[in-house]
């Protein structure tokens, strides 16, 4: 018995080494691109510095005070919630619809799934240019609006419309990606559950809400966390289409960080905003996770 235990201990240590070894690429990546920059940012927030000047002026908490008072930062705080109000329902419905469609196809499911996944791979800049072309005042779509209504919507001039356009654009980009997560969830639901429900007289609508949706809890959980987190990191679409306007309606955290760091060259102030951004993501994601876990428990997931 004693020799077995020793062997077992050696095996355990060997497994540990292998485990660390296999995880090391990710750990090194995270160390280089997340931990070190985060610590560096934590040091920078107390300075007024342009990244290159030999002098770094220590300013204490002044950067945080300025950020909290800034109308631009306050606008950036609210923008993710405005995007979320449009993006979440749109992307959840679209992704679920795609997943159900692909799941029902059988033989050609893979090809169709890749087709829906393509927008996720496309460059955000290219997509923004396409959307800009489609919605421009002298596009065929605008001509149609003009013919039907006598005017063309001011897509990027009205704050609410600009938010809707950008949120829907992102829903287009991400619905294929989230659909793959839903698809994996759908494939793991035992068919027996649907058969039993059918015997009990449940229709397809009831089966969807009483079986499919609750059984997709792990997938929904992942998608919700990814989608909500995404709203706090939006950059390319408003950068290309609205510049954060009109009236800061689409001004995001990352636009403000980019502007302060790379246009105004205020590394300390930009870092302070980045820390506030991280805090807001952390708080909101904690709330979302708790809510999802509560919903999961209510549906029998522990």
């Amino acid at each position, binding site marked *: 018995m004693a020799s077995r235990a020793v062997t077992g201990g050696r095996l355990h240590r060997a497994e540990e080494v292998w485990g660390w070894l296999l995880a090391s690429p990710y750990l090194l990546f995270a160390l280089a691109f997340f931990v070190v920059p985060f610590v560096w940012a934590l040091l920078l927030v107390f300075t007024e510095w*342009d*990244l*290159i*000047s*030999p002098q770094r002026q220590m300013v204490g908490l002044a950067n945080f005070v300025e950020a909290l008072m800034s109308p631009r930062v306050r606008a950036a705080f609210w923008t993710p919630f405005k995007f979320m109000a449009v993006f979440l329902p749109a992307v959840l419905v679209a992704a679920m619809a795609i997943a159900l469609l692909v799941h029902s196809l059988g033989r050609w499911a893979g090809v169709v799934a890749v087709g829906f996944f393509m927008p996720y791979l496309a460059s955000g800049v290219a997509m923004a240019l396409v959307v*800009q*072309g489609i*919605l*421009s*005042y*002298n*596009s065929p779509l605008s001509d149609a609006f*003009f013919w039907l209504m006598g005017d*063309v919507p*001011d*897509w*990027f*001039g009205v704050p609410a419309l600009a938010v809707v356009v950008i949120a829907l654009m992102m829903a287009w980009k991400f619905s294929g990606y989230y659909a793959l997560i839903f698809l994996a969830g759908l494939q793991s639901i035992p068919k027996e559950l649907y058969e039993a429900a059918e015997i009990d007289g449940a229709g397809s609508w009831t089966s969807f809400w009483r079986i499919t949706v609750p059984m997709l809890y792990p997938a929904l959980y992942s998608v919700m966390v990814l989608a909500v987190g995404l709203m706090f990191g939006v950059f390319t679409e408003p950068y290309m*289409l*609205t*510049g*954060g*306007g*009109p009236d800061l309606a689409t001004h995001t955290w990352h636009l403000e960080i*980019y*502007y302060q*760091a*790379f*246009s*105004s*060259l205020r590394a300390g102030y930009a870092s302070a905003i980045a820390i506030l951004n991280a805090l807001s993501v952390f708080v909101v994601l904690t709330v979302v996770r708790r809510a999802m876990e509560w919903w999961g428990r209510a549906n029998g997931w522990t």
Partner: protein
Amino acid sequence: MAVLLAGIGVGSSAPSAAAVEATFWSAPNPTQEVFWREMAQAFMRERPDIRIDVRAMVESPSSEATILTAIAGGTAPAGSENIFIGFGAQLYESGALVPLDTLPGWDQIIRARGMEEAIEGWRFPDGHFYILPIYSNAMLFGWRIDVLRELGYAEPPRTYSEVFAVGQRLRQARPRSFLMARAELLDPTWWQRWFDFFMLYYAASQGAPFVVGQDVTADREAAVGVFRFYQELNRRNLILTRTSTDPFPTGLSIWADIGPWTFPDWKERFPEMRLGETFALSPPPVPDGYPAGEPIRTFADAKGLVLYAQAPKEQRDAVWEFIRWVFTRPESDLRWLEATSLPPVRGDLATSPVFSGYLRQHPELVPYAEALPYAVPPFASHRVTDVQTALGEAGLVPAVRGTKTPEQAWEDARAAMETVLRR
């Protein structure tokens, strides 16, 4: 052995063992990169003791960010181009640049390019010059002269009132056309102000300095007048502030700010755009009562080159030798013009026989060459981005929207800009 190798030519094109190697970054624009590579090749044939490695700077997320990152990481090149005076001021504040006028041959370059007057706009607060301007796009406005003729005008309007009159007649004749299509009038992105506010401001104020040190020194009457002009255009529904595709060449609008970089694109996509037939170029419109015959100033989108203090001295000296070689030869500026279509900063661009052949073949560049002496580069402040963002957010954008009177917009913008400058 050496004799044998020399005899068969081995090593004849290789750098000498003692050659100094230095890196020079060109703008992330293929035509500029081609120019600098050609120049470096020609220079190195004459100076085998110097190796100039030309690389295009990366533009991710911006060329300015790339330069900053390189300086912060200790990997700055010996020199680079693509520096506008505002970013130069930011680098100057951080002690990152070399004062070029302390280097041998500076005066020789200034004389050779006839830049004695133009260079004054590039002087820094300590009296030195840290940027050698290479090109200057004296920004002009394009007018669809074919449409103007249809409307009964022989030439572009000169004053604000004349512009309104053209607009009114245009809307009557073509209800779906606009005088100007510029969605950027409502975009507070700082550099957009160069092409709407500053073009008109420098014209109206006859080039009055906008910012000096920490003070907004702008001509109030001219600035308020520009706000009022744009507000009135919008109120009369003469400008389209929504996104549109190629509005000027397609005739959706008949008036647009045009830089010389536009013409290669038009040549490819809109060959029907020909000077005198479909479009004309003119300086910015001026307030009513502007003295007749007085030249009209405009904004100059101008950039130059710098040497970085961080690079070893021998490398900086090597690049400076290269720069001297390039810019004391007028044919270099001709080659620059041919390669990039960007007017070099030369006092004799419109008059020298060196350039006359090229300008005859490209008459659309002649108005730019003629406007060079009246073009004002961006103001030199390390807070340029914040100042111009404040100008847009608190001033021009609300003025265009009509949510503030021109006077209120100016007072708010001025206060916001001074707050930024004194931070």
